[in-house]
């Protein structure tokens, strides 16, 4: 066990954890931030997507010891009032079914829009390919990202 100071959602948080503990479990079990979801543990489903310096990463693949000075943003920190254009668009399109993958989908899409505020349909599909939605809400995800991009 070691002590780590990690920058999450604009705050520095102190945690005790083994060096190889994935950020996913630090967020969920040490910091009680449950929005980031466990899906596969091997970076294949995208349910655990967070931002590392604005880029979408799979938090199940990032050991706490590798975070260092980098900024982490989670779904809880995406917007202050839950009104990021993507969150608004998700509500407008009533995207979720079971909803379990959706925080990861939104974080993944937010990283895309950070870099490219006007993505083409193909760019949306390519950027979202790594996030599985088992319920089949893919069409609404595409529509919601398009709507959010129009707001930016």
């Amino acid at each position, binding site marked *: *066990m070691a002590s780590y100071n990690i920058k999450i959602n604009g705050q520095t948080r102190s945690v005790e*954890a*083994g060096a*190889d*503990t*994935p950020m996913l*479990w630090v967020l*969920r*079990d*040490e910091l*009680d*931030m*449950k*929005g*980031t*979801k*466990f*899906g*596969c*543990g*091997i970076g*294949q*489903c995208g*349910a655990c997507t967070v931002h590392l310096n604005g880029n979408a990463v799979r938090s199940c693949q990032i050991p706490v010891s590798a975070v260092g000075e980098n900024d982490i943003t*989670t*779904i*809880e920190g995406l917007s202050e009032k*839950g009104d990021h254009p993507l*969150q608004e668009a*998700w*509500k407008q399109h*009533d995207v*979720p*079914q*079971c*909803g*379990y*993958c*959706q*925080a990861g989908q*939104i974080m993944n899409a937010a990283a895309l829009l950070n870099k490219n505020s006007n993505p083409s349909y193909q760019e949306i*599909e*390519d950027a*979202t*390919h*790594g*996030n*599985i*939605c*088992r*319920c*089949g*809400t*893919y*069409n*609404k*995800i*595409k529509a919601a990202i398009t709507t959010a991009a129009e707001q930016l």
Partner: protein
Amino acid sequence: MKEQLTTSRRGFLKLTGIAGGGLMLGFNLTGCDTLPENPDFRDLEINAFILINGDGTVTIKAKNPDIGQGVKTSLPMILAEELDIPWKMVTVEQAELDSRLGSQFAGGSTGVKTNYENLRKAGAAVRDVIVRAAADQWGVQPLDCKTEDGFVTHGSKRLHYGHLAEAAAQLELNEDPPLKDPKTFNIIGKSRPDVDLKKIVTGEALYGIDQEIDGMVYATVLKPQVFGSKLANIEDSEAKAVPGVIDIFEISQGDNPGNGLGGVAIVAENQWAAFKAKGLVKAEWNSPKGFISSNERLRRALDRGASSKGTVLKDEGNVGNAFRNSDEVIEAKYHVPFISHSQMEPMNFIADVQKDKVLLIGPTQTPGSAAASASNITGVPREQVQMKFTRIGGGFGRRLLNDYANEAVLISQKVERPVKLVWTREADFLADYYRPAGAYHFKAALTGKNLEAMEVNICTTSRYLYRQSTPAHGTEAFPDQQPAGMIPNFKVTYSPLKSNIPVGALRTPGVNATTYAYQGFMDELAEKVGMDPIEFQLGLIGTEDKDMPYEDHGGPTYNTVRLRNVIELVREKANWGGGKSQGFAAQMIFGSYVACIVDASLVDGKVKVDKVNVAVDCGRVINPIGANAQVQGGITDAISAALYESLELRDGAPIGQNFDRYEKLRITDSPEVDVHFVASEESPQGLGEPSYPILFPALTNAVYQVTGQRIRELPLKKHNLV
């Protein structure tokens, strides 16, 4: 609680939560016909479903588990409609397991269908007492009062529901309250987004896996590589050296796989330590005798079963004569693989077993069974088992079984602490209860353009082999499935195959396989007689308005006109025959009528689904936006299974143990799906499942149009297509 009131009434309309002897209120209701500046009314439960809040808003209990099928929204909509309260004044809360709420269950697309009338009555009964309370106060007739915008009105007098709850709670609930004329519905039939939408998009802790209780420890379970293996030896010194590991021990739920598959439990101070230690446990297992080692062996065993003399489930006319006397006999063998549920939220459950009580928290489609099972395991009386179920990150039938909940109970019992059990994704693939694999052998007799006879011999790895009380063919073969009753000679037989692969219900159990096989074969027959596949099937269905017997789920009958209507609707909407590569299929499924047309193409040897049109008659639609999503979701789920999914075995172990080797549909393969509902005032049916089966044959029939190859075995990725 006034016990005499709860026991004097029957069923769900019990008045259960009204104020008892200690009722002390600091205001006077009489003559109070305007809204006070600072309303100070108490929140009151009028029946088990409805709490009238002091401010006039209402809280409605969502009775059933929501696995993504939307019942946390649609069932409260039904209550709110008859309560006649604006939807914006409603807050929905998840109910716990509570016997007053009736059956609390998610499966078989039954949520809306079986609750519609009851919930209408429950909502109307509360509106009825609220109105009578107002009428009493005003000294007028209830029938002369109206409800609108959350108020009861009479002439210029108006009171919101919160004013009236206290008085209403003193009145007897009407067991047969007046119901609304459906023409006046203003909640049912209008799209309402999911009640948890905001919580989902902001990442609030909604799911079982997000729950915590004080003092809990974390657990996971190591599963054997070959299904049904028993633990022979365990070497865990390295695993126990992982910091935070508390205990490692075997758990077992006996020899019937239907109860649970057992394994090695690892308990730790945090989830990651448990996962890490699991990777370091060295366990030796004894594989079960005669285990299925490969897919080739499985296929041979299924074909042997289908070729054997099975149980005769239907034998109309004389198929033997018809085969001898017809112009032509056509045969085809269809196969479906084991497929995984792979719900996104991994299996998890919290159990706190104490000497005289048990607390359970978690995602289950059958909370009542989970509680009963915990009582059996621990010996704690059922009344002392509290069960809180959560929103569920996908069910698809996997969470009908409570093997994982039972494991949490066993582990908590052993370590004498509250436990949160979380499986890894690998454990999920190693201990899933897969959709049964099956073989479907067809034989048909044709004379001219007439289908004279058909025989179907089915063999599957039935999940009902786990039960003594149910015949193995239950939900595996559907003897009344069309074209039964539409041709003069018809025979269905069934043979079960015992295997070591655990099996369970998956989205339209059984029907998802038979629909593929039957509707695929019908397409072959249409081609043989040189007819358009839609015309061929419409010819069999006929133009008469008939109720066909259907003894399985979705019956007791289905109507030929409703089936014909969805076929004609999808034919029009999909521009059938417009020069595209299209496949068609239609059937009544679990009470709803679905017809589907798929447009497909081949890109670099891979099937691309370009467009799906589905027409649905599910009776009255409660929540259109949710209904549409369910149909789209079922179609998309089926595209995933049709293109990619199969449990592939090597030496008896699954090759795919995570999403790297068990492929699921990604956004890039997800086509546009247009859903067309038949406007209907028939009683509402469920929608979580019916669209799923119909996609398979519609897709493979389209692939035939593209490639000329009949796909009689899924998934498509196993075929070399050109």
